[in-house]
């Protein structure tokens, strides 16, 4: 069934074998195996969830290196596989002030350093390279935060890059090469299939996007927003360069932080000013099948009280709509609804009604956006901060919260796949069979169909039935004018790690969105569990009295369904409340809000009532769409 690439014995023969091989593996597994690797011992024809992180910065990102991050891509992958690494602050002997380790290794990861300023950062960091002694590089090393603002804010090329920019162009290739080599070296191609990596990077234009490549055939230079300022330029160049490759150079582009994108992520105009047409909408849907709904700089699902009455939207909301407002408080304003994925899904349906194609058919993932090179470090306890736009820690560990109060440890990406290989995981991304969590490893299924049986939740073959008689998360219901759609959602609690048991689940919901009279309508349906489950938590000690459950499952039929209206459905599960990272840190620092003498400088936000002391960690499935 799985074939290694054959030496050329005739072009026709190879093409035939390859085609047959791809067809056979596609038929058997639902994905095409195009890479050369050992077959995985562990196969799950009905798929299983793989947990990972697709948004990781290491020392090659300007905003990480200027904060003392020294983690290399290879070390980041080591960390993802469970090894301990040292992180800043660094002492005089170059020893790390902190060590971090995951409680459980990840299944996959991708290092996504900012492609912008790869060369400039490399020159300023590497003694011996021409330009290292320039004034700009001296400022980079001595006043790194200032250099971060100035280097990001330059409009013309730097003098130290040389008159023809050749120095920076040459240096540009070095980090990208190391990122590719590290991803290759860490990818487990043995039959154990223990860990998968993707070659990837971040394109940081006016909205931010991660580009994930399927295999090893990638552009020689990571196309950045300096040369390709709009996302359509990015797609143009990726499509163009990929056409030149010998093998398919599949990629997915994943927008993130729509919450602080100043309403640009879900805009429906092209750079030319024209409205999205069918061709561009189709291209967007193909190239951008996923959106990052949860990460370090907040949740992008929805915002409490902004275009919604959904009480659970008040989760990791960042109270401004533009990242610059993190630094200039005068610029802060509450984000509008169109910064959030929920409204983005509705905008997509509106565009579909107009041009016939939905450009925002997004599946969901979460990730960390760590700038310490620590993929998957999404636990609230002992959270070291993620750097980047957060609190810079370089030579001294500050006596303060280690991240701005509005930030959080981020989430995880979960992909439903048959095996832990690049081909299988990438196929999951393309078909949107993915979900996001805010950190815990909840096992979450969601199917929609027209005749899912009433006892589906109690049957051991739930997944079998779901695939056979419906569509999984990320799918689209076939048209049906005479029935109401039925959904089944099942969540199993995170089993936890040794000494760190998982938290019970509290309630399971389905969120339905539809367009009526030109307006977005939403309905949040509680389908299992209850908010009134007598859970209690003491924020001072963080002890929990829980009566939550290990699993939640329900079948729900949409009796209000109108087959002439487009609709989208996704499921959300929340755990019992637990202490937020900031509460844990404040307690550990001995801060007591009822005793002002304990509130030291740097810890004032411990007693900022705008931010909750407890959170309900959660997971969101990718949606299922219906189009009339």
């Amino acid at each position, binding site marked *: 069934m799985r074939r290694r690439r054959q030496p050329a014995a005739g072009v026709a023969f190879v093409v035939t074998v390859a085609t047959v091989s791809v067809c056979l593996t596609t038929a058997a597994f639902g994905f095409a195996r195009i890479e050369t690797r050992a077959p995985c011992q562990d196969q799950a024809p009905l798929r299983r969830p793989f947990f990972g992180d697709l948004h990781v910065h290491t020392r090659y990102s300007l905003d990480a290196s*200027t*904060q*003392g991050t020294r983690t290399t891509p290879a070390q980041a992958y080591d960390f993802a596989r469970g090894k301990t690494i040292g992180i800043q602050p660094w002492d005089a002997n170059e020893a790390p002030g902190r060590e971090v380790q995951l409680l459980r290794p990840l299944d996959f990861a991708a290092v996504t350093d900012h492609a912008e300023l790869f060369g400039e950062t490399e020159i300023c960091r590497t003694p011996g390279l021409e330009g290292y002694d*320039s*004034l*700009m590089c001296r*400022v980079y090393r001595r*006043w*790194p*935060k*200032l250099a*971060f*603002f*100035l280097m*990001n*804010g*330059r*409009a*013309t*090329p*730097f*003098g*130290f890059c040389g008159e023809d920019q050749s120095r920076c162009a040459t240096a540009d290739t070095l980090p990208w090469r190391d990122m590719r080599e590290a991803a290759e070296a860490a990818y487990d191609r043995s039959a154990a299939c223990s860990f998968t990596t993707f070659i990837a990077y971040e394109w940081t234009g006016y909205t931010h996007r991660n580009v994930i490549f399927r295999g090893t055939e990638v552009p020689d230079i990571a196309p950045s927003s300096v040369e390709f300022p709009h996302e359509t330029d990015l797609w143009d160049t990726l499509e163009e360069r990929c056409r030149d490759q010998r093998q398919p150079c599949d990629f997915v582009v994943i927008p993130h932080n729509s919450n602080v994108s100043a309403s640009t992520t879900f805009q429906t105009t092209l750079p030319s000013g024209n409205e999205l047409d069918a061709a561009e909408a189709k291209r967007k849907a193909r190239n951008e099948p996923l959106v990052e709904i949860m990460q370090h700089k907040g949740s992008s699902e929805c915002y409490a009280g902004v275009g919604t009455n959904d009480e659970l939207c008040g989760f990791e909301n960042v109270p401004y709509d533009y990242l610059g407002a993190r*630094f*200039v*408080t005068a610029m802060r304003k509450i984000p509008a609804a169109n910064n959030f994925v929920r409204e983005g899904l509705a905008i997509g349906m509106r565009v579909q009604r107009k041009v016939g194609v939905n450009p925002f058919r997004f599946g969901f993932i979460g990730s960390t956006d760590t700038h310490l090179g620590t993929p998957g470090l999404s636990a609230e306890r002992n959270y070291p901060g993620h750097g980047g736009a957060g*609190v*810079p820690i*370089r*030579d*001294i560990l*500050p006596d*303060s919260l280690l991240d701005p109060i509005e930030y959080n440890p981020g989430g995880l990406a979960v992909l439903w796949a048959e095996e832990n290989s690049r081909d299988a995981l990438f196929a999951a991304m393309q078909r949107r069979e993915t979900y996001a969590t805010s950190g815990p490893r909840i096992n979450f299924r969601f199917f929609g169909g027209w005749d899912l049986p009433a006892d589906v939740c109690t049957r051991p073959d739930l997944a079998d039935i779901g695939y056979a008689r419906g569509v999984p998360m990320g799918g689209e219901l076939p048209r049906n004018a005479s029935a109401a759609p039925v959904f089944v959602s099942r969540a199993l609690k995170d089993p936890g790690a040794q000494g760190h048991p998982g938290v019970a689940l509290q309630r399971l919901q389905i969120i339905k969105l539809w367009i009526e009279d030109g307006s977005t309508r939403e309905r949040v349906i509680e389908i299992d569990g209850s908010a009134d489950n007598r859970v209690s938590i003491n924020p001072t000690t963080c002890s929990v009295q829980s009566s939550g459950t290990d699993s939640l499952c329900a079948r729900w039929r949409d009796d209000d369904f109108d087959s002439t209206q487009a609709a989208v459905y996704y499921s959300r599960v929340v755990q019992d409340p637990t202490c937020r990272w900031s509460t844990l840190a404040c307690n550990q620092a001995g801060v007591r809000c009822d005793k002002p003498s304990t509130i030291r*400088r*740097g810890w004032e936000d411990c007693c900022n009532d705008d931010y909750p002391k407890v959170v309900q960690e959660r997971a969101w499935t990718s949606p299922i769409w219906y189009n009339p």
Partner: protein
Amino acid sequence: MSVRATKWVLWVLLYCIAPVPYTLGANETAPPLRLFLISTLTGLLQVTEGAGGWVWRTFILLGVGQCLLYALGLYFVAAFICRATTRLEDSSRRSLTLAIVAVSLAVACIVPIYETPLSSRSLYSTLLQILY
């Protein structure tokens, strides 16, 4: 020491060590001298690197604007303090001024009274640390 000389000494002292709030990408609370140094550095970089753009221009304008504003404001503060010393003998005034300078410098060098996120070293700095 004359009243006039005292005024200028105090003005220089305040300009070099008085923690004042300003914004330059990040909000800092540090002496105007630091703001002056950063603005000058940015100007020098613009000349040497030729890296223009609105961010750089804004940085320089913000820096220079706030430097001038604080120079003027602190001049009035120094003048106000001096007014209280007009009745003192020159020698007493000199002693008082030197004492103020010494104590202020000592406090600024020992206690991390400055908030300096632009340094990326420590959020809070002493005078010695911010000049390092």
